[in-house]
């Protein structure tokens, strides 16, 4: 009896955020998706440390092009080993293989996998942003490291295989996840700011300002987004640097996807504006800014967060679609769309199926985002009494 009373009291005195948190943690599928998502985000943040090779052309393996994945193993016919190892491969070409290069596995020679080995150099906290205009350039040189999680002593280790230039697909996948998430984050941020401003003005002032802005928002919403993206992305000249292109594409994603969120902000503000507590604040002589910042914004922070998480996978998909048709990011930048572009040739489908490993990561990333968004939405809904 005592316990249940305490529980009840805890429930009634809990803040909105505490309730949301409890409900979210109680949602099993959202929790599983959330952990996978968190794991992937952390992996992508430490991509340089985890990848044994440079994901750009610098890290290519000349002796292993279009190579199949090499999975480290613990035993073979010659017995068991506590340290994982790979067999040695030899490039071979002769009359019996129709003079094509094939790899012969020499099971007698083992190559052991070592951890925390030294490899290619990478930088941490290194920012070098080079946008048009001198004011926007800034440079921070960070720290240089060369320790990697794993590697082998001689030859290469490519656990996801290599592409046609010999670039390690594992390293590329990790950096692609990082880049795609970065593009998505920047895009979501831009669309967030835009929708707050436009939806905010529209909802707070109402009247004819609202009508005009709503008409504009609706017009943008009726144009099919991908063709509009394509139309805008076609402006980017081919000679732009990859950083500039990256920035441009993120801005585009943000500039096109704000209407849905702006509409939600507006609807919420319109209904909240006529509530008594706003009237009370107005009567006390509070300024518009004070009311917006202190009262209106906090009243829907949780909805905004939920909406942002829900809109994230669409950002990722748009970026992928753009890069896929060649209007988005391009080599040498790695993104999931760029990697998918390589996977669409019939020859790849039949012979080099490991090109599809990044596709799997894209699907998992989007699925987890959708599940987490769904869980958050359910958790933030105050009408659900469970």
């Amino acid at each position, binding site marked *: 009896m005592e316990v249940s009373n305490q529980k009840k009291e805890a429930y009634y005195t809990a803040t909105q955020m505490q309730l949301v948190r409890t409900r979210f943690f109680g949602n099993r599928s959202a929790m599983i998706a959330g952990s996978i998502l968190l794991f992937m985000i952390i992996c992508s943040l430490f991509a340089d440390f985890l990848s044994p090779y440079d994901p750009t052309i610098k890290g290519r393996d000349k002796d292993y092009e279009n190579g199949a994945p090499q999975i480290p193993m613990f035993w073979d016919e010659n017995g068991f080993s506590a340290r994982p190892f790979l067999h040695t491969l030899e490039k071979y070409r002769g009359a019996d293989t129709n003079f094509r290069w094939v790899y012969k596995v020499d099971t007698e020679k083992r190559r052991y996998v070592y951890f925390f080995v030294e490899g290619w150099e990478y930088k941490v906290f290194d920012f070098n942003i080079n946008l048009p205009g001198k004011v926007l350039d800034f440079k921070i040189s960070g720290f240089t490291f060369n320790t990697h999680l794993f590697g082998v002593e001689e030859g290469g280790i490519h656990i996801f295989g290599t592409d046609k230039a010999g670039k390690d697909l594992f390293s590329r996948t990790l950096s692609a996840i990082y880049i795609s998430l970065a593009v998505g984050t920047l895009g979501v941020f831009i669309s967030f700011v835009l929708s707050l401003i436009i939806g905010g003005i529209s909802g707070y002032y109402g009247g004819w300002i609202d009508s005009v802005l709503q008409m*504009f928002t609706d017009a943008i919403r*009726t144009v099919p987004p991908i063709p509009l993206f*394509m139309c805008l992305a076609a*402006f980017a000249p081919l000679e732009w640097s990859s950083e500039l292109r990256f920035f441009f594409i993120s801005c585009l994603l943000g500039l096109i996807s704000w209407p849905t969120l702006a509409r939600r902000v507006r609807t919420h503000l319109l209904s909240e504006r006529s509530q008594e507590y706003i009237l009370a604040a107005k009567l006390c002589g509070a300024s518009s800014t004070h009311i917006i910042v202190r009262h209106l914004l906090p009243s829907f922070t949780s909805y905004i967060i939920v909406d942002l998480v829900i809109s994230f996978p669409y950002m990722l998909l748009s970026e992928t679609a753009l890069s896929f048709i060649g209007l988005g990011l391009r080599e040498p930048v790695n993104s999931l769309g760029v990697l*998918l572009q390589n996977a669409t040739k019939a020859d790849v489908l*039949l012979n080099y199926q490991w090109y599809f490993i990044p596709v799997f990561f*894209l699907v998992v990333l989007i699925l987890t985002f959708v599940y987490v968004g769904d869980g958050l939405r359910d958790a933030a809904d105050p009408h659900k009494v469970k």
Partner: protein
Amino acid sequence: MINFIQFTLTRAGLAIITLLLVCFIVFSLMELVPGTCAERYLAFKNTQGSQITYEDIEKEKIRLGLDKPFLYRYGKWVSNIVFNGDFGDSCILRMNINELLSGRFMLSLTICLVALIFSYLIAIPVGIISATTKYASLDNTLKFISYLGIALPNFLVALCIMLFMTVYYGDTMTGLFSQEYENEPWSTSKLFDFLSRAWLPIFVLGWNATAFALQTVRALMLDENDKLYVMAARARGISGMSLLWRYPAKHSLGPVINSIGFDLNRIFSALPIVALILILTEAGALLIEALARSNDQQLAGAIIFLLTATIVFVNFITDIILAIIDPRIRKGVMGGG
């Protein structure tokens, strides 16, 4: 009745204003692209071996009317479309856009509309089942399949089916017609040939659309199902399918009809990429061609205009339908009654 006509006219007026606004956005985008049509065409001629001077460019500009101010050209472009149904000439292909698009846009529209109908036919019953089932595992499975429809990129699904068909049937399934029918006029056998191939893009686009529609239906049903009027109906002893169809399903129909326009928008959006993979010969593929390869802004503008006009039209129709079937909106429109 007067009220209803007034409502229809206001809606039509709003739709036209939206369309004009969209036109303006599309036209401004076309203008922002570096280089004018005249320059691009003459640059193309230059690669063919003829010498081009500065005067030639100026002359060509005057011929195309590019020396006129921006707003004048915008007005001319719009009035040409509205009054003559004429989109002008494609800048690079040197062909009349109407000719280029005539059959292809209808093909795209047919594919999209069939995909839309297909997705709703599946999504509505499945969404209701998913929302009202007692078995959590069934609900979770249906939810997972629909999320997968969102997460799997369209082109990947298309590619996998293509590969499967190639390996097991020896036919790649690309294109919309077999070779012998490609340039034939429409006939019954051509229609069957078209259907035997068009199911692939329709399926791919439809799965994705079904996923979205399913979520809408499911969420609406869940919301409505908890409401008091449903509980009251249950207390009166109505149960099972008749309860669902008479009360919550009927009420959630409104927002579903409302979302048709946006679903069509989404399908149109996905079409170009699927068209690229399946090598379809319709407007979506032409759009990618115009934007990504030849930078043909006239053609791209015309296609985007047509797509948007279709969506605006569908939105207008759904608004009218809603006003007719939904008593709550009808009351708002007619006043009283």
